[in-house]
């Protein structure tokens, strides 16, 4: 029905509006669409991430040699039919090690931001909704936490608790809490004063209901955007930690660890470091590209809804 009325209006003497106006308008809409449409720079990285994720999840089922299985016939061998990406100095299959390493990277990439945002969400919502002394206590806690250098925290955890995957995720997650809490607090403050929250209180809704039903659905988008930024950061930090030998312990392969092992053989067996580096680079870049595209879309959704 919209189309009919539009064509009528256009024919009703206003035809001199001119094609110039229509063209400019079309260009503006096209630009807008180009900016928010999911293009190749979204789909190709997403495809790569799916490949990495599927490979990592199904690692035991691909019929690859175990990541710690030593093939005495192929010590430090370049890519071949038997070992597509070659082997390391101990004759372990590199492809298998990279795929098993991806499990560590992806686990940390998702778990650390999840822990950080989960805790930050609770603290930030409490501070932003209740204000008063709760806000002050949370504020002081966050400020003190930020005063400790992140690297020190990571090193301390690694030294005290050793390199378990859980501790790596946990210590990294702790570092994401302050920013997540601040974002949540600001967003909560913005909504806690809105009249729909007041209306819910006038209805006798409990604080839990108000926070979960009225506030939470409104603040989730900035937090998702925050998580999208944090995933690649977490992967890079984990890579650096394992390069320094501060992440998961030796037999468990991780990308940073493999790169570190190949470091001394760069001149004779460059592929050992090269392939995991490449995989990590492409994966982190993909997360960034996909994250950017989604965040642009989210901004659009938010503008449209409010």
């Amino acid at each position, binding site marked *: 029905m*919209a189309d009919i*009325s*539009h064509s*009528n*209006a256009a024919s*009703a*003497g*206003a035809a*001199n*509006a*001119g094609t*110039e*106006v*229509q063209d*400019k*308008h079309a260009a*503006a*809409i096209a630009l*807008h669409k180009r900016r928010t449409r999911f293009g190749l720079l979204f789909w190709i990285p997403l495809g790569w991430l799916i490949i990495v994720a599927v490979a990592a999840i199904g690692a035991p089922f691909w019929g690859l040699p175990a990541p710690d299985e030593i093939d005495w016939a192929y010590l430090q061998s370049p890519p071949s039919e038997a070992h597509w990406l070659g082997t390391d100095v101990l004759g372990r299959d590199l492809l298998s090690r990279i795929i098993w390493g991806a499990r560590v990277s992806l686990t940390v990439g998702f778990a650390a931001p999840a822990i950080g945002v989960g805790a930050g969400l609770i603290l930030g919502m409490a501070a932003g909704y209740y204000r008063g002394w709760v806000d002050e206590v949370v504020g002081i806690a966050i400020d003190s936490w930020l005063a400790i250098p992140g690297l020190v925290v990571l090193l301390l955890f690694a030294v005290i608790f050793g390199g378990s995957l859980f501790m790596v995720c946990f210590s990294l997650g702790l570092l994401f809490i302050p920013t997540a809490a601040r974002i949540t607090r600001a967003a909560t403050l913005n909504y806690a004063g809105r009249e729909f929250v007041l209306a819910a209180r006038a209805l006798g809704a409990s604080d839990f209901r108000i926070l979960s039903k009225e506030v939470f659905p409104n603040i989730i988008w900035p937090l998702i955007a925050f998580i999208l930024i944090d995933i690649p950061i977490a992967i890079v930090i984990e890579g650096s930690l394992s390069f320094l030998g501060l992440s998961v312990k030796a037999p468990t392969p991780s990308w940073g660890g493999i790169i570190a092992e190949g470091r001394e053989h760069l001149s004779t067996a460059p592929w050992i470091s090269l392939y995991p580096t490449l995989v990590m680079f492409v994966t982190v870049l993909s997360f960034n590209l996909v994250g950017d595209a989604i965040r642009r879309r989210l901004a659009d959704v938010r503008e*449209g809804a409010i």
Partner: protein
Amino acid sequence: MGETILEVTNQRTAFATGRGLLQAVDGVSFTLERGKILGVVGESGSGKSVLSRSIMRLLPGTAVTGPGSRVVLNGQDLMQMSEGELRRLRGPQMAIVFQDPMTALNPVLTIGKQISEVLTFHLKMGKRDARRKAVELLRAVGLPQPDVRVDQYPHQLSGGMRQRVAIAIAIACEPDLLIADEPTTALDVTVQAEILDLLQRMVRERNMAMVLITHDMGVVAGRCDEVAVMYAGRIVEKAPVTELFRNTAMPYTAALFASIPRVTDPPHRKLDAIEGRPPDLINPPPGCPFAPRCRFAEEACRRTVPELEGTATHQWACIKPLNREVAA
């Protein structure tokens, strides 16, 4: 007397949106003489504010001005001007007062500085002269203790005082045209009355022309010489103020009058509300934009868009005007 200050011809302004082209101002024409106040009344979405910005050429980048639109100020065609040329006109020839005086003033500069800036830029005044003139202007707009206030920041003033400062800045370079866009909407009634008095006095004393944009029929009633009623981006009725109120032609104007609660009414009188809502400006209905809500509308109203017609002083855009014999 009778000198034309502003001439707007077939002004059309549209905005590109995700859904399509929104025709905010759709063929508005009027002229304004020195010493006169034109009231532009309309509800939200009627295009009255976009019209004010179209005249000042202060439109955002998404705006598209229709070909054939002409705004002539003091004989100069603003459409042909560069941004630099326009900037030199804003201040000495035309100025605008916005609805929200807080956002119109710079929060980190003293009000004296903000007034003198205009004076030094346009009138090439020296710093000391500009400051003296700023105090003088603040006194003229009725700000108490102008020599103290001149060194204060906007947040130290109340809403009414900030609007006085905004008016002082607007009239600093003695413009010929002053556009007041909902200048009192954010203010309390007693303050509103004072600000409207001030604007009216400034126009008379300085012999300017003013376009007073408002949603409030009460505001135009006591202050304007002529009133233009806008609906869906068009002027639908234009007349001298008393004529418009006493001899309304356009059903929309009449319906608007009937829907206003008045202090003189007895309590609990049922208001004659206009049912429905203003049309979607992206997909406007065919014919008269008010037809879907008009109780007098007939088939012909839904076919063609009525042109503004009538006498030299009183025009309406309606094929079935009220209280009038229509020549067949």
